[in-house]
C-alpha cells in the first residue's frame, strides 16, 4: 500500500500532470498524421525524458503511447487512411460512417472505445501481469507459428467483395514480406541486384503506399467534384460526447471481448496493436447478428478496432513488467528509458521498484483520462479537417506521407519504393482487390516464417505442431475459423457492393 501511495504521489504532481498532458497532445497529433507512428512519437520523446525522474519520464511516454493509439483513428475516420498501422481496421467502418454524414459520431465512438479499452487493459494488467507473463514466455515457436496461422484466417473476414481476390491480396502481402534478407540467416532474396530492395520492403512504406497514396489519388477520380472545391466530408460536426459514451457502453460484450483480445495479443511479443485491431474487428464481425453491416459504417466495427488496439498498450506492459521482455518496439523504448535511469528491468522489477510499477499502472489510467480530455476538447478542431477542400488536403497529406516515409530510416531509396508501392496500391484498388489482407500478409509473413523455421531448427519433427497442446488449440481454432468463413460465404453469397467512397477493406 505504501508503494502504491508513493507511486500515486509521484504521478499526481502538477509538473508531471502538465508533462503528461503535453505528451498526450503530442501522441494524438503525431499519430493523426499518416506516416507517423506511435513508435516514432515515442522515440522523439525519449531524449526529452532523460532529465526527468524515472517515473515522470515513463508517465510522459505512456501518455504519448496512449494518445498515439487514439490519434490514429482521426485520419482513419476522416481521410480513410490509417494514421498508424494499429488503426487499419478502424478505416473499415469509421470512414464510411464519416462519409455518410456522421464524422463526429465516428470519432467519438473511437475515442470512447479507446478510453475503455485502455482502462480495461490496465485493470487486467494489474491483476494478471505475473501469470500472463509466465504463460507468454512458455510459448515456443510451434505455438507462435500456429497462432499466426490462426491470425491469417482473419483474411476470410477482410476479403471484401471477392473471396478469391482477398485471398490473392493476402498472398501478395506474404510474397512482399519475403523480399530482402531472410529473417533467420540474413541471406539475400529476390532483390534482383537492385540496391533499394536489399533491405526489403519496410512495412510502413508498404502501409503508406498501399493505403494512403491509393486513397488520396482516388479522392481526385471525379475531376468535376474536385474542381468545384468540395469538402472532404459533409455532415454535422458534432462530437456528441455523452450520447456516444452511452452508445459504447451499451455494447459491453464487444468492448470486453475486443479489449481482452488486445491485452492477449499485446502480451505476446510480436506485432501488437497492428494485429490486435484486425483480430478484434474479425471477432466482432463473426459474433454480430448483422455481419453484413460491417464495412458500411457499423458502430460495433469502430468499437472493436479501437478498443482492441488501445488495449495492447496495457497488454504490452505485461511481459515488460513481469519478465523484462519488451513485447513491441514501443515497449523496448520504454525499457530503454528505465535503463537510462539505472533501473534494471526484469522479474525483480516489481520486487525492487514496486512504487515505480504501481506508478506505471496509475500513469496508464491517468494517461487514458488525459487522452479523453484532450480528445473531447480538441476533436472539434480536428473535425475542421473535414471542411478543408480536397484540392488542398490531397497534396498536403501526400507531403506528410513523404516526410513520414523518409523519417522512418532516413533513406532516400524508401521514397522511390513509395512511388512503386503507391502506383501498385492504386492499381489493385482500381481492380477491386481488398487491401487489408495484403497489409495483414506483410505484417504476419516474417513472424510466420521465422517461427516455422525456428521450430524445425529446434526439432525436425513436424508433428510437434499437432502434439503440443497450445499449438494444437490454435490450429483447431484456425480450422474452425476457415469452416465458419466458408459456411457464411455459402450462406450469404451476395456481398454488399463496395461504394466508391468506402476504403478498400
Amino acid at each position: 500500500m505504501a508503494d502504491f501511495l508513493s507511486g500515486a504521489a509521484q504521478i499526481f504532481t502538477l509538473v508531471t500532470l502538465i508533462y503528461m498532458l503535453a505528451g498526450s497532445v503530442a501522441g494524438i497529433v503525431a499519430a493523426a498524421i499518416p506516416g507517423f507512428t506511435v513508435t516514432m512519437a515515442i522515440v522523439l520523446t525519449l531524449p526529452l525524458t532523460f532529465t526527468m525522474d524515472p517515473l515522470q519520464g515513463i508517465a510522459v511516454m505512456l501518455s504519448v503511447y496512449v494518445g498515439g493509439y487514439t490519434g490514429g483513428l482521426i485520419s482513419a475516420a476522416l481521410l480513410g487512411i490509417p494514421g498508424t498501422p494499429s488503426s487499419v481496421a478502424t478505416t473499415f467502418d469509421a470512414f464510411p460512417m464519416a462519409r455518410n454524414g456522421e464524422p463526429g459520431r465516428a470519432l467519438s465512438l473511437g475515442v470512447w472505445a479507446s478510453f475503455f479499452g485502455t482502462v480495461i487493459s490496465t485493470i487486467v494488467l494489474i491483476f494478471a501481469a505475473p501469470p500472463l507473463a509466465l504463460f507468454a514466455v512458455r510459448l515456443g515457436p510451434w505455438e507462435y507459428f500456429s497462432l499466426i496461422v490462426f491470425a491469417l484466417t482473419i483474411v476470410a473476414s477482410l476479403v471484401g467483395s471477392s473471396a478469391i481476390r482477398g485471398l490473392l491480396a493476402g498472398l501478395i502481402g506474404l510474397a512482399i514480406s519475403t523480399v530482402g534478407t531472410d529473417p533467420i540467416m540474413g541471406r539475400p532474396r529476390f532483390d534482383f541486384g537492385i540496391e533499394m530492395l536489399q533491405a526489403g520492403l519496410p512495412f510502413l512504406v508498404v502501409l503508406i503506399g498501399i493505403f494512403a497514396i491509393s486513397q488520396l489519388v482516388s479522392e481526385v477520380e471525379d475531376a468535376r467534384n474536385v474542381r468545384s472545391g468540395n469538402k472532404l466530408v459533409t455532415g454535422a460536426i458534432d462530437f456528441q460526447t455523452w450520447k456516444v459514451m452511452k452508445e459504447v457502453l451499451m455494447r459491453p460484450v464487444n468492448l470486453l471481448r475486443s479489449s481482452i483480445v488486445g491485452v492477449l495479443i499485446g502480451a505476446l511479443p510480436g506485432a501488437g496493436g497492428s494485429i490486435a485491431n484486425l483480430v478484434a474487428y474479425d471477432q466482432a464481425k463473426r459474433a454480430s447478428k448483422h455481419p453484413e453491416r460491417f464495412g458500411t459504417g457499423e458502430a460495433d466495427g469502430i468499437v472493436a478496432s479501437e478498443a482492441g488496439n488501445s488495449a495492447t498498450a496495457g497488454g504490452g506492459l505485461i511481459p515488460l513488467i513481469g519478465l523484462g521482455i519488451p513485447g513491441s518496439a514501443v515497449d523496448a523504448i520504454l525499457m530503454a528509458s528505465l535503463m537510462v535511469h539505472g533501473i534494471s528491468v526484469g522479474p525483480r522489477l516489481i520486487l525492487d521498484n514496486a512504487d515505480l510499477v504501481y506508478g506505471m499502472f496509475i500513469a496508464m489510467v491517468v494517461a487514458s483520462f488525459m487522452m479523453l480530455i484532450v480528445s473531447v476538447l480538441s476533436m472539434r478542431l480536428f473535425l475542421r479537417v473535414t471542411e478543408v477542400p480536397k484540392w488542398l488536403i490531397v497534396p498536403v497529406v501526400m507531403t506528410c506521407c513523404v516526410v513520414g516515409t523518409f523519417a522512418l530510416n532516413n533513406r532516400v531509396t524508401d521514397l522511390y519504393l513509395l512511388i512503386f508501392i503507391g502506383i501498385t496500391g492504386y492499381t489493385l484498388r482500381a481492380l477491386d482487390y481488398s487491401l487489408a489482407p495484403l497489409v495483414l500478409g506483410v505484417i504476419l509473413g516474417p513472424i510466420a516464417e521465422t517461427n516455422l523455421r525456428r521450430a524445425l531448427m529446434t526439432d525436425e519433427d513436424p508433428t510437434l505442431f499437432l502434439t503440443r497442446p497450445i499449438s494444437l488449440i490454435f490450429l483447431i481454432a484456425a480450422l474452425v475459423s476457415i469452416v465458419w468463413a466458408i459456411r457464411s460465404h455459402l450462406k450469404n453469397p451476395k456481398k454488399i457492393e463496395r461504394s466508391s467512397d468506402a476504403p478498400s477493406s
Partner: protein
Amino acid sequence: MNDASLVETHNQEAGEIARLLSYVVLLLASIGLFVSAGAIPPSRFEKLGAGAFPKIVFVGLAVVSAIAIIDAVRKIPRSAYGRFRSQTVAWARRRYLVFVCLGALTAYLLAIPVLGFSIASLIFLFGLQVILMPRTAKSIAIAAVIALAFSYGLNWLFAEVFTVFLPRGVI
C-alpha cells in the same frame, strides 16, 4: 436493356478483363519467383532454407491465380474482348486527375534528392494545388501560403525541433 445498363454491363466486363490480366500477371510472376526461390542455396544449419517459405507462398499464389483465371474466363463473353481497348481508354480519360497526381508525386519524389526537400515540396504543393483547385485569387493565395508552410515550415520543424534532417539536395 436500356442504354445506361448496357454501358454499365460493358464497364463491368472491361473490369473483369482487366482483373483477368492481373491474375495472369500474378500467375506468371509467381511461377518465375518460385523458380528463382529454387536457386537460393539450402542451409547446412536448418531443415528449411531461406527459399522454403517463399516457395510455399508462391505455390499458393499460383494455384489461387489459376483458379481466378478459370473463373474469370468463364464469366467474360467473347464480344467483350473487342471493346476492352476503347473501354480502358475511356476509363483512363475519366480519371485523368489520378494520373496527373501520380505523375506529380513521381516527379516530386525523384526531385527531392536533387532539389532538396524544401524547394521540391514548394513546387509540388503549389503546382498540384493549382492544378486541382477552382482557380480564384483567394484560393491561389491560400495555396501559396500552404505550400510555404508545408515545405520550408515542415523542414524547419523537423530540423530544429526533432533534429531529423530532410534531404537538402545537391544544388
